[in-house]
């Protein structure tokens, strides 16, 4: 049963944050997750349903100093086609290309993909290895304040984040790549379209003299949230990317993930995928 008492479609951030400050708000953006989740009873509507589509300034990609800032209501299609993303974060564009279907990419937003906090969310693993930050705005004392947090620290469980009830996710920011920066993304699914990842892998770092530094490895769909793989990173950091290093890292990856059995795969199969595909991706980085 729905208990919605109010529908709001604010035009400004100020207005949206004012509504959030009153409490008990369900936020609607693309609706592609909210509609099926509420219909299935997995999410209950709160007293106010707030549609943020018309909020000015929340959509689009722009430089912000040394960062690329992507507004929360930017659609997956818009990111996929954005020249700034293609140039500065091609691995994110690649993940957006493996995202659901055209119809869903036209509706779904990056803010929604982050806020939905699925361990298998397609943009999350690439964003984490790109050192992305989320930007959260609120209006606790009549004035708009924002805070930022690394995306890697944002998720607390399936469907749960550190966003406070009075906060709105306004943007995700990606630092511009350093010279020599490489990033790779891999998603395994039974079919290319409309499949939820069985596992996904992101690897990024700065490649110099055959070694990776500032290494980031993240995995999707192997834990309650997308996770950084710290032991795999440690096995790679600064080491020459030879066969021995790659094998050690792939073993570390298999040993540090803790997936579950579900309809998409067994835990054992997920661990095998993580090992074999991490190895293949590192081989490709070494040969590139």
């Amino acid at each position: 049963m729905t208990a919605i008492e109010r529908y709001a479609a604010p035009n400004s951030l100020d207005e949206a944050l004012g509504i959030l400050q009153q409490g008990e708000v369900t936020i609607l953006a693309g609706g592609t997750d909210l509609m099926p989740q509420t219909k299935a009873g997995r999410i209950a509507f709160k007293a106010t349903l707030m549609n943020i589509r018309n909020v000015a300034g929340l959509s689009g990609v722009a430089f912000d100093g040394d960062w690329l800032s992507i507004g929360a209501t930017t659609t997956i299609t818009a990111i996929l086609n954005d020249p700034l993303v293609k140039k500065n974060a091609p691995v994110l564009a690649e993940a957006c290309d493996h995202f659901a279907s055209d119809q869903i990419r036209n509706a779904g937003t990056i803010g929604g993909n982050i806020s939905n906090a699925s361990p298998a969310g397609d943009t999350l693993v690439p964003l984490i290895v790109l050192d992305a930050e989320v930007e959260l705005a609120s209006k606790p004392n009549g004035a708009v304040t924002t805070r930022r947090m690394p995306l890697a620290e944002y998720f607390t469980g399936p469907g749960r984040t550190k966003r406070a009830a009075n906060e709105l996710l306004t943007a995700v920011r990606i630092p511009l790549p350093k010279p020599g920066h490489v990033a790779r993304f891999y998603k395994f699914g039974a079919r290319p379209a409309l499949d939820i990842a069985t596992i996904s892998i992101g690897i990024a770092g700065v490649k110099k003299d055959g070694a990776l530094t500032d290494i980031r490895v993240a995995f999707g769909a192997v834990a309650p949230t997308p996770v950084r793989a710290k032991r795999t990173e440690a096995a790679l950091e600064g080491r020459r990317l030879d066969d021995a290093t790659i094998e050690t890292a792939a073993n570390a990856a298999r040993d540090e993930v803790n997936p579950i059995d579900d309809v998409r795969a067994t835990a054992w199969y997920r661990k095998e995928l993580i090992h074999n595909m991490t190895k293949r991706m590192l081989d490709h980085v070494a040969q590139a």
Partner: protein
Amino acid sequence: MLLKHDIEFTLNGVRKRVTVDITMNALDMLRDVVGLTGTKYGCGEGECGACTIRVDGETRNSCLMFAVDFNGRDIVTIEGLAADPKADALREAFVEHGAVQCGFCTPGMVVQASHILDTHPDADAETIKRGLEGNLCRCTGYKKIVDAVESACCGGR
């Protein structure tokens, strides 16, 4: 008592004012409130594409859209395409190539195909297949559909 909301939008070129339940999806509104039943209910969760419509030019699964989110938008359904001379070639190509069997997926396929041809006027078979990946057909095996869309491309090749 369900909360209702008044919305105004353009439906197939005509201004429309409707009062809808806040949680109603756009597909139910089109079929049950407005009475346009060309758009089909397949899976109800965005997997099959039978409910594909165009919203401000882009295609969406209407089953995943809140009807209230139509407010201020330009909506085109299969009924709108049927009256659009620009879609004649596509419609004729579906007939010509036998791209219709039971017909249930056809409205969604045609609407999505119209979007592919608008955004990729030179679409080859690969681009068409990628564009149609959100639309399921359980009869044709897709080949005839892809052939039809390809032949409608660039006014037929």
